[in-house]
């Protein structure tokens, strides 16, 4: 298994059309696979062409997303996050 590349979702709440779910902002996961490039939907929503951006499938553990409230900490959530929402990060907890 290759080493996990951890990324943190930016903890921003900008106005407008955003496809980064609020419940994942500020959370750290690892890249499951890279997709795209696809045009940035935040620009397309306002009739711009949309800058082509890589789209990452990021995998989060339930423990990371919900903390103590996690139903089963080792279950996971995968979500597609545009590259400009991600910053490199350390592993959030012991694997």
């Amino acid at each position, binding site marked *: 298994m290759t080493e996990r590349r951890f990324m943190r979702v930016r903890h921003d709440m900008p106005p407008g059309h955003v*496809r*980064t*779910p609020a*419940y*994942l902002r500020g959370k750290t996961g690892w890249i499951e696979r890279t*997709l*795209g490039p*696809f045009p940035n*939907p935040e620009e397309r929503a306002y009739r711009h062409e949309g800058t082509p951006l890589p*789209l990452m*499938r990021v*995998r989060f553990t339930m423990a990371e*997303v*919900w903390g103590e*409230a996690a*139903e*089963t900490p*080792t*279950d*996971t*959530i*995968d*979500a*597609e*996050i*545009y590259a400009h929402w991600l910053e490199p990060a350390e592993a959030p907890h012991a694997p």
Partner: protein
Amino acid sequence: MPHDHHDHVSPSGHPFRPDNDHPLTYWQQMEIAIRELLIEKGVTTAAEINAQIVSMDARSPATGARVVARAWTDAAFRAALFADAASAVESIGIDIGGLRLIALENTEDVHNVVVCTLCSCYPRDLLGLPPDWYKSRAYRSRTVKEPRKVLAEFGLELPPSTTIRVHDSTADMRYVVIPARPPGTAGLSEAALADLVTRDSMIGTGPVKAP
């Protein structure tokens, strides 16, 4: 949860639906205005719009079931499906209209379930229109928080040894779950296998039928 609504039932046993006598909403007026303009200007025709609605309504989970049955019987197709689902599906003559697709493999150790927390993204070309509960706030908010409880309400109890992977369909990709082939199906034809595949088994909220 699939039946959260307690709709009124008429004496004849049909669900009660009020007549739509209310004035048009802003968006209904807007849709009609734009549609009429497009027709007047010759961009499209009423017949073309209707044909599109008919073809949208004609899509059904049977298409997805064909894909699953092929994945159960053809190892090369199965490998291609998990490498590049859209190309694999098109290679067996299914037109998915440019859909960007990822196939998710259920195994003894991993169970996949699909949700769109932002809206109602759904692989319509493979599964038809989504069920109403898929678009409900309850399904969308609870599936990422307590998937085991949600699946249990659908009648799907998974052992703690099975890892649940929830897939939030947030952007460009659509997802189809490829359930595990049930035991006792060794002699069945591909068509008979496809009959076992339910819509919910391809969303991840239900089992396949027993042979």
